[in-house]
């Protein structure tokens, strides 16, 4: 099955800083999603992005499917951005997702 690796595993930022989170996947995908898990455990979908670029406010994501990676950009970070960011990828059996290990982000005021 697809292998998904995320980097860095941990990230500490000062409020207002920008950051880039990376997701590498081992095979071609037809489903690539980014999620944010808040400190209470709720997972929220940020982007469905098997290819191309999307933006939503201070967040944007780019997936380069041919090179098997995706990037999540957080600009002007806020304390509410803290939590764990997961990348998840699915291949031919697109209903099933394989999750990466996550990037734990802490934004300090």
């Amino acid at each position: 099955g697809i292998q998904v690796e995320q980097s860095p595993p941990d990230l500490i930022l000062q409020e207002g800083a920008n950051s880039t989170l990376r997701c590498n996947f081992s095979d071609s995908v037809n489903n690539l999603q980014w999620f944010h898990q808040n400190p209470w455990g709720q997972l929220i979908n940020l982007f469905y992005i098997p290819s191309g670029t999307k933006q939503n406010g201070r967040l944007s994501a780019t997936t380069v499917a041919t090179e098997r990676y995706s990037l999540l950009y957080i600009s002007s970070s806020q304390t509410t951005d803290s939590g764990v960011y997961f990348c998840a990828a699915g291949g031919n059996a697109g209903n099933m997702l394989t999750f990466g290990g996550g990037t734990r982000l802490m934004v300090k005021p």
Partner: protein
Amino acid sequence: DVKVTQSSRYLVKRTGEKVFLECVQDMDHENMFWYRQDPGLGLRLIYFSYDVKMKEKGDIPEGYSVSREKKERFSLILESASTNQTSMYLCASMRLSGRADTQYFGPGTRLTVL
């Protein structure tokens, strides 16, 4: 907005007990999923269902079973709970649209097996 609810936020059970975790979604989604989340391991798929009474094994089905008698409800069953099943359990749902789509998650159930 899609709403996925789980029957309990926190649950404490004893070794050997039969445990039922319930998940309900209100958006008429065909696909439903059960994951467990453990520190350092991310989310791992236990089972998923693409229709009523249909189920497929995920990556770690051992020690678990599932039931989908109605479209909106997907149950995870631990026949005889063990301490290594202490974990956070997350349910998700997704529509079947002819292509892969977004998964929506419930709030999670943190299960402790003593």
